[in-house]
């Protein structure tokens, strides 16, 4: 091998550019010239170490350079100055806010029962309210004046003003809905439910706030949403994609006969300890990796370890029935499953497989009685 060829091959090998043939050639050459191997090892060590720059690029310098850039990003220079930066968007403080991203995704919004006024209190004149509601057993889709699309799940209500979209975009939600929000960075979409407010900064999320339910939830699929609470306006939570926030509606627990009450001596299982506010990840159904929180969009009701009391409310809305418990001991039993195309009787039979109970379905008034 000619001398140049050796260095050529070695350089290629170190750079990862040597073909298998070239690597073989090099290997063969080493085996014929074992004296080279040790020197090559030294070259290996050299190659794998880095060179310190003559001028130390210290962490400080990098940090300084970064802060300069941060400044420029946050405060675009006015037009005409030396460094003309045509910013499409400006960066707001990292701490809390993200931009609204143009959405093509669908947002579900649950409308919570609120006799909440959308009206801006400062305005003198009465503004007409628009109410869209769905009955149990049905879903509907509407389009708001700004083009935002809303899918309402069963038993839900959406309220918006006549001047929605003019200076603000405020909505009231009772129940469950999914939104496809039209991008407008100057006018964030705000959804008020009884126990939490959701400011839309992103594109795809589900809000579930049925009145009387024990919990309210906002589940973020994509983008960003900021959740705040009517009684604690200073507290704000920013959700990242794949996160959901669950809030316990304290008064719902106290007044709700369908919440299982336990005697003092009964063992406490983990599921029954619900923190007041918790942020967790979206749940996926193991079988088909569907996101449970938005499975209703696909006409699937997926529930995991859900107490029958809470589940019965979903069943009422889903099948448009009324459920009565003749035996309260069944309220706290947990069920896991998926309803897709079953009718109410098929669904109840399926539930019986998990835990034995009896039911009676009165067809003429769509009522289900559950007993032991």
């Amino acid at each position, binding site marked *: 091998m000619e*001398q*140049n060829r*050796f*260095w*050529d091959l*070695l*350089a*290629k090998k*170190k*750079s*990862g*550019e040597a073909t298998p043939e070239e690597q073989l050639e090099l290997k063969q050459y080493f085996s014929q*010239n074992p*004296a*080279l191997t*040790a*020197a*090559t090892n*030294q*070259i290996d*060590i*050299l*190659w794998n*170490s*880095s*060179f*310190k*720059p*003559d*001028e130390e*690029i210290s962490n400080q310098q*990098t940090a300084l*350079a*970064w802060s*300069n*850039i*941060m400044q*420029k*990003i946050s405060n675009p220079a006015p037009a005409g100055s030396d*460094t003309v*930066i*045509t*910013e*499409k*968007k400006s*960066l707001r403080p*990292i701490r809390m806010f*993200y*931009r609204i*991203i143009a959405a093509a995704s669908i947002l579900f919004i649950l409308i919570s029962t609120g006799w909440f006024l959308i009206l801006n209190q400062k305005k003198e004149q009465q503004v007409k309210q628009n109410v869209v509601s769905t009955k149990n057993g049905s879903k509907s889709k509407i389009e708001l004046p700004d083009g935002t699309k809303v899918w309402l799940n069963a038993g839900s209500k959406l309220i918006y003003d006549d001047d929605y979209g003019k200076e603000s975009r405020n909505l009231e939600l009772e129940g469950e809905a999914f939104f496809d929000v039209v991008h407008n960075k100057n006018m964030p979409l705000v959804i008020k439910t009884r126990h939490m407010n959701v400011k839309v900064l992103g594109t795809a999320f589900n809000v579930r706030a049925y009145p009387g339910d024990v919990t309210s939830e906002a589940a973020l699929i*994509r*983008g*960003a949403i900021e959740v705040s609470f009517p009684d604690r306006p200073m507290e704000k939570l920013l959700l990242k994609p794949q996160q959901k926030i669950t809030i316990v509606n304290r008064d719902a627990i106290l007044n709700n006969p369908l919440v299982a009450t336990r005697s003092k001596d009964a063992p406490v299982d983990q599921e029954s300890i619900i923190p007041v506010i918790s942020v967790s990840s979206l749940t996926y159904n193991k079988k088909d990796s569907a996101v449970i929180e938005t499975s209703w969009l696909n006409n699937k009701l997926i529930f995991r370890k859900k107490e029958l009391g809470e589940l019965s409310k979903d069943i009422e809305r889903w099948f448009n029935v009324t459920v009565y418990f003749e035996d309260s001991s069944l309220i706290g039993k947990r069920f896991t499953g998926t309803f897709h195309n079953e009718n109410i009787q098929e669904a109840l039979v399926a539930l019986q497989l998990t835990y034995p109970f009896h039911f009676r379905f009165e067809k003429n008034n769509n009522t289900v009685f559950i007993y032991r």
Partner: protein
Amino acid sequence: MITSQLDDLCILVAENDDALAFEKIFNLFYRRLFLFAKAFLKSRESAEEVLSDVFLKLWQNRDSLPAIKNLNYYLFVSCKHAALDYIEKKNKVPTINLDDLAVEFGEIALNPEELFISTELLMRIQQAISALPPKCKLIFRLIKEDGLKYREVAEMLNLSVKTVETQMSLALSKIGGELLAANVFPHANLSRFGDDRLEQEK
């Protein structure tokens, strides 16, 4: 150097305008790009300015950040363009001769003991590297330190791949030659490993 983490950071920046993620990307690349720009501009302040412009533009175009397949290469090319533009504006010089560059190669971050060599030999290796022609040094650094491929370096500097190969081979021969010439391996036929290509280059 380039990991799937980088892909995630790019998505965060593009979709969420995540400045923290952008800072992480910045920290990953800043040092090496700075040295690269400084090789062309020979001035710290100018290099800082060019780097600042490059990253600002990157932020402005962050929507398409995840679509850049090879961010490392992209940033080097951007810096090169920005540096040349800068030079053109300042000095009215449209092209630059690669041998005019001031390529810095700092100390080898190793102790002589780790290489089983003497301090003097390490120094000689350092000097050999520093003595490489600027073009060779630049290419060597781009490939060894900055992770570029032969093809990318050739494209970026408007050279042929063959030239890049030759320069790399040259660099290796200077380093390796020193090691061998130090009589570490007296039985090897060392005379075959001197390099006369340096003479041929001129």
